[in-house]
């Protein structure tokens, strides 16, 4: 094969490799399960908002900040969007009552907190109606395979092998109604998927974006649950 033809084929292979790498964003099968338990009716008028919070009092198993941020963003956008106050803004407005050390862990403690005139006035002023407590994590398991990269003859780096792993997201959101002082229900989102990285010279990752899918599913369910 003459050098010109070899060069053209190499260029085509590189182009194909880039296209396959880009496709990994679209592939990677994820299975999602949503559950909902309703204990009371819900409604949100135009002047009211919700806040999505994560539990921070534990030393392990804390929900990822970017997941809570993702749920907040998705819930406040798209069809059926709700008015969402950011977690940090809410904590700042109600400081020091919703810090990791001081945040109410159950409705009884919340009732005590909001019974204080300073707190109830502030909550009325900021217009928050529902607190959504999100708990859960995304974890990776069952890793298998191996990937090795080296420099082959000609100075070209190359990787060979096959990696795979399972990812699972399991989140639950408890919805508290501040006005009525009750828990109105729970929404949970589970997602699982397998990610693979085959490598024949160029590694091509196919990543199952389970956390992102869990976020989207939970946000959509929250919009339906609260906005109903």
């Amino acid at each position, binding site marked *: 094969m003459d050098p010109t033809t*070899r*060069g053209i084929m*190499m*260029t085509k292979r*590189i182009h194909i490799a880039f296209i396959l790498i880009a496709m990994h964003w679209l592939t990677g099968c994820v299975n999602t399960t949503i559950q909902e338990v309703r204990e009371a009716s819900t409604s949100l008028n135009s002047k009211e908002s919700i806040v999505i919070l994560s539990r921070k009092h534990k*030393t*392990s198993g*804390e929900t*990822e*900040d*970017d997941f809570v941020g993702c749920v907040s963003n998705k819930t406040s956008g798209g069809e059926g969007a709700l008015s969402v106050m950011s977690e940090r803004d809410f*904590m*700042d*407005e*109600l*400081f*020091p*009552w919703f*810090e*990791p*050390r*001081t945040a109410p862990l159950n409705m009884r403690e919340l009732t005590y907190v909001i019974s*204080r005139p*300073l*707190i109830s006035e*502030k909550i009325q002023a900021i217009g928050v109606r529902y607190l959504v407590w999100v708990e859960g994590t995304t974890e990776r398991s069952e890793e298998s395979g191996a990937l090795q990269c080296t*420099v082959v003859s*000609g*100075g*070209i*780096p190359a990787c060979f092998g096959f990696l795979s792993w399972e990812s699972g997201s399991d989140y639950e959101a408890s919805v508290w109604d501040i006005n009525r002082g009750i828990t109105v229900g729970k929404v949970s989102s589970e997602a699982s998927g397998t990610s693979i990285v085959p490598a024949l010279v160029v590694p091509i990752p196919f990543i199952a974006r389970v956390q992102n899918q869990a976020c989207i599913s939970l946000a959509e369910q929250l919009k339906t649950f609260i906005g109903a």
Partner: protein
Amino acid sequence: MERRQANLLLILICVVNIHWVAGCSSDASVTITTNIPNPLIEQVPINVAIYYNDTMSQYVHSEDLGSYGNHTIDLRSQISVFNRIFHAMFESVIPVDSIDSVQGRGADAVLAPSIEKFQFAIPEQTRKDFYEVWIQYRFELYGADGSLIHSWPVTAYGKANRLNYGGMQSEKSPALREAATWALRDAAASISFSFVRQDVVRQWIQQRVAS
């Protein structure tokens, strides 16, 4: 052409690897410049003088973690954090240079916070995902005559998840800063609740208000 492309790719991979490896034993020096939100707490109807010793007002923690590098955490902004919480807690706050210089300043008591212990941990040590900071303070409340009314510890804890910073070696300084910031915030929350929950302090306040 293909050899040039391959060489460029090899150089790129080498640069990424050097960046990654160079961060493995990085030092960290963080200066905490934080303040806390306006506290939503009921005021205690007393006038308090606040005394910070030099250790407290100039506190900088330096620690050599061996292969994990030198770490320096400048905590001097804790003074502004405490001042903000004290201004919300008490009717008036008077800064003083010593516990004895309160006479004639209109203060009912002197509050003297100090640092007893400071510890931190990084993920490389604990094999967890968190940068953690622990601070133990000692609060001493003196009467206007200089007599000790009560002394109690206040602990503060803050953490930052490394995954929120991309998991790269360049995460260390911002993550440590975040953990220390949360620790100061926790300290402010803790003192705002713990002050009136001290039985001795509560009784003293009641007597003071009644008189």
